[in-house]
């Protein structure tokens, strides 16, 4: 494109027959024809760049949006929701005048190509989404999924991803308080690197991405624009990538956390002085996205002079400038008389800031290069009126067979000795083992407000020092469950995250999600996606927790082999006083252990079936969201009224996994008795949902039992915190030392 004369709007109108590389830019033929129809002429090269990148799957949600609508249509009534789906991130009222914004996004493909930078820039992107809402970022979480733990490529990808998340997040001063690390061969070649962030602001500080007020200036600030990730958004993220394809410019974006830290501080200072009318971060699709979204959300049009964009590489063409995904950049709309002060603040923080355009009273987005007009579009057609696909979907032919392969029929341990052996295998398996080797590479303490961090059930941050008001967040997903039944699997992810928040004593308020799936062009994958979205939307409605935003990542597959459908759900909760939080660790010997909820024979998709039998089949555990809600209410009330000293949700690995974790974290063992009506195996390994274990001080036992009885929640006394072994009466006993060696040795042995 750079060799031909400048492709101006005028030139495009005069040369209708010029062939443009729309296919190489990822557009389909009918999409290109639609662009021509919208413009009434062929697009210029710059316009084509904008449309192609904004109409990519990654930016336009063209395959998913017909399903995602359910999150709005089925949204429960919620007083807490201040800003819903469609903005950079949702905003929730948490009381005392505070608002919290949070979101989870994927950076899957880039993290496979270049693990360190892919993961680092994933953190950078989600954090800029949070700043763009007007909030100070206060914490990050990272749900991660990799191929088999012992696969050589996992040893390449995982350490790079972890170092990238740490290298970037630690340098920004954001505590990393939660997330997951899951291994499964299905993620080989398609690791899932999801990143979530939380920000806090006062209600009046909420900012939106819109450009209003003719004459207001558009200011680009942050890093200079280089050739990073050109085509990244449209090619890397929207089609299964092909190693062999040569690339003119590097597709890998490189992050500079120091620059981002300055961007945070100078943006917050500008917000504090009320200098900003509208704001947008530059992420995927760079300036194309920021200018078209700001303009289309505002009341007027916008005129931009591309020559004024500060460049790192002076050879970039205008198309490349529009598509560049250089990191650590933001775009603000500022009233003319406040521009000087805005630039002064940027200068204070050594951040480059340049006026690149202004809001007009028209309705067009016009972009100029060397004095000539190279873009003249209705910004809404770029940002919001991309294609919508009703992709065909169908329940896969193998689904029945998979569900018929019942895990409950797998051979079970027949003696105490065999049980003991399987417990040790389970807690040492990569998915159930301690992830401390990973999480200790993240800063948990910075900002001085971390109340709980991984391996707690949810991360918790104090947001008001005086009152003790805090927020909690948990992210969960289980691709094995979702593979067996995507509708139920998505609800189980929601239920687990909800339960994890409640277990720490916080009240669940709202949901964000990151939906990771294979190719939408495969009807079986599309069915998984449709079912998962339906399940999540129905579940959120029933639990009263609206979806505030999120992210869809498709094409996570190699050839015909898609990843397990993996909806990752983040639940945000609020706690009035963080002093009342409930930790996982056993606190005091002699406290009574209670199992809350019902235990059934449910082994489909379980950790036990994976670790012992390398099996995936049957049905996932049943979901009862009313029960989840009741369990949550009990856990929150028990925390508030000081009836429990520790609590742990039961999920993958079942009861024994939870007991072992609580015991190791507290350095105190437990004596367990198999309750009447259950066999030891089911008691220890079943993954029935809607359950938790709690440690109740003896002085609180009557009160706690009365509360559970009155509310109709089954509460079964199963043992006592005691000694330095985990003992199941009549079956086996394991020393904490042996359990610790098994649980904590696995990951370092594989990766260190």
């Amino acid at each position, binding site marked *: 494109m750079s060799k031909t004369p400048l492709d101006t709007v005028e030139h495009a109108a005069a040369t209708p027959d010029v062939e443009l590389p729309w296919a190489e830019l990822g557009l389909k033929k009918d999409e290109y024809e639609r662009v021509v129809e919208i413009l009434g002429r062929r697009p210029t090269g710059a316009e084509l760049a904008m449309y192609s990148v904004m109409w990519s799957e990654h930016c336009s949600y063209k395959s998913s949006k017909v399903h995602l609508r359910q999150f709005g249509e089925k949204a429960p009534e919620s007083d807490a929701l201040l800003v819903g789906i469609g903005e950079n991130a949702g905003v929730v009222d948490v009381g005392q005048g505070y608002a919290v914004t949070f979101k989870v996004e994927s950076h899957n493909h880039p993290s496979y190509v270049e693990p360190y930078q892919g993961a680092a820039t994933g953190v950078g992107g989600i954090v800029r989404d949070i700043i763009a809402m007007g909030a100070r970022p206060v914490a990050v979480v990272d749900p991660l999924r990799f191929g088999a733990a012992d696969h050589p490529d996992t040893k390449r990808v995982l350490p790079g991803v972890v*170092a990238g998340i*740490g*290298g970037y997040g*630690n*340098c*920004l*001063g954001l505590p990393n308080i939660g997330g997951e690390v899951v291994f499964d061969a299905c993620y080989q070649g398609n690791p899932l690197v999801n990143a979530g962030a939380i920000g806090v602001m006062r209600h009046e500080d909420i900012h939106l991405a819109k450009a209003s007020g003719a004459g207001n200036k558009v200011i680009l600030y942050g890093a200079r624009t280089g050739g990073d990730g050109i085509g990244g958004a449209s090619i890397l993220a929207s089609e299964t990538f092909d190693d062999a394809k040569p690339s003119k410019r590097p597709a890998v974006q490189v992050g*500079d*956390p*120091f*620059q981002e*830290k*300055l961007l945070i501080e100078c943006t917050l200072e500008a917000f504090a002085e009320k200098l900003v009318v509208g704001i947008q971060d530059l992420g995927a699709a760079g300036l194309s996205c920021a200018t078209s979204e700001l303009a289309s959300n505002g009341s007027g049009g916008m005129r931009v002079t591309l020559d004024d964009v500060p460049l790192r590489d002076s050879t970039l063409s205008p198309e490349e400038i529009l598509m560049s995904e250089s990191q650590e950049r933001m775009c603000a709309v500022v009233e003319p008389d406040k521009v000087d002060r805005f630039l002064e603040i940027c200068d204070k*923080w*050594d951040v480059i800031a340049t006026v690149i355009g202004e809001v007009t009273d028209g309705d067009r987005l016009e972009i100029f290069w060397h004095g000539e007009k190279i873009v003249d579009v209705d910004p809404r057609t770029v940002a919001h009126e991309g294609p919508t696909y009703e992709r065909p979907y169908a329940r896969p032919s193998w689904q029945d067979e998979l569900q018929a392969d019942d895990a409950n029929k797998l051979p079970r341990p027949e003696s105490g000795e065999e049980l003991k052996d399987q417990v040790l295998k389970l807690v040492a398996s990569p998915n159930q083992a301690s992830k401390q080797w990973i*999480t*200790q*590479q*993240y*800063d*948990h*303490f*910075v*900002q*001085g*407000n*971390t*109340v709980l961090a991984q391996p707690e059930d949810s991360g918790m941050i*104090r947001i008001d*020092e005086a009152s*003790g008001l805090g927020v909690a967040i948990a992210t969960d997903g289980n691709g094995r469950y979702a593979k067996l039944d995507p509708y139920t699997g998505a609800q189980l992810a929601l239920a687990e995250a909800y339960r994890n928040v409640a277990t720490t004593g916080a009240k669940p308020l709202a949901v964000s999600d990151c939906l990771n799936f294979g190719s939408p062009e495969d009807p079986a994958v599309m069915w998984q996606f449709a079912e998962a979205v339906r399940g999540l939307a129905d579940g959120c409605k029933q639990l009263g927790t609206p979806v505030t935003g999120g992210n869809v990542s498709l094409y996570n597959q190699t050839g015909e082999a898609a990843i397990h459908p993996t909806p990752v759900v983040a639940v945000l909760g609020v706690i009035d006083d*963080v*002093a009342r939080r409930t930790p996982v660790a056993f606190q005091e010997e002699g406290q009574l252990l209670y199992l809350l909820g019902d235990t059934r024979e449910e082994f489909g998709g379980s950790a036990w079936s994976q670790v012992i039998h390398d099996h995936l089949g049957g049905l996932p555990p049943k979901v009862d969201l009313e029960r989840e809600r009741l369990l949550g209410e009990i856990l929150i009330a028990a925390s508030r009224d000081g009836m429990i000293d520790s609590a742990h949700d039961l999920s993958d690995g079942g009861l024994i996994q939870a007991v072992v974790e609580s015991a190791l974290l507290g350095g105190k063992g437990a004596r367990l008795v198999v309750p009447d009506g259950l066999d030891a195996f089911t008691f220890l390994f079943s993954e029935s949902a809607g359950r938790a274990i709690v440690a109740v001080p003896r002085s609180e036992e009557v009160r706690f039992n009365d509360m559970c009885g009155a509310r109709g929640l089954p509460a079964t006394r199963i043992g006592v915190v005691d000694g330095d072994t985990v003992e199941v009466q009549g079956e086996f006993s394991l020393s904490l030392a042996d359990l610790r060696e098994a649980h904590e040795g696995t990951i370092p042995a594989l990766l*260190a």
Partner: protein
Amino acid sequence: MTARIGVVTFPGSLDDRDTQRAIRVAGAEPVALWHKDKDLKQVDAVVLCGGFSYGDYLRAGAIARFSPVMDTVIDQAKAGLPVLGICNGFQILTEAHLLPGGMLGNDHLHFICRDQKLRVENADTAWTTDYEAGQEIHIPLKNMDGRYVADRYTLDKLEAEGRVAFRYLDVNPNGSLNDIAGITNEAGNVVGLMPHPEHAVESLIGTGRTDGLPFFTSILKKLVNA
């Protein structure tokens, strides 16, 4: 009348507000100082806090050491102004040659964040009088470049003069020579350490211990009684 303790913010400082909070919790008045200002606003002591000043892109602390505020800090520290360097602050103090030796990347090449056990070796500095020599404490540690190195002569001198202020116990988390976690200058007014006492001042937050508070009460007592 309480003491005014300055906390310098460099571009890339991360624990500045946390350090200000710790000073407040101890009962002193925190004063924000800016790297571009030579003026120390007549504070009674200065804390250089943790973070990645200027991205630590040259060496940890190497660029911050040349900022305007450091000119004044260096002059006044030599004249007796109490200065505490935490993590990146410690790195800046060694780069500024207010403390001997230097800081390098952790020997295992990873960032490490852990609740670290330490022994207080010197309870006579301006920042450690509220501890007892030999006391064992837990303070969060979080860094990439925490490996303290110095030549043999310097190490011997530090040991002989009792200037190793803190030593790692149980685990040496970064390969520091002689398990050194923190040191003091000869006069005892300048102290640097890698672990973060400002993250151990409230029982609810972080590791739930308050073993770091005596840093701030020590200096407060010294300044108020002076």
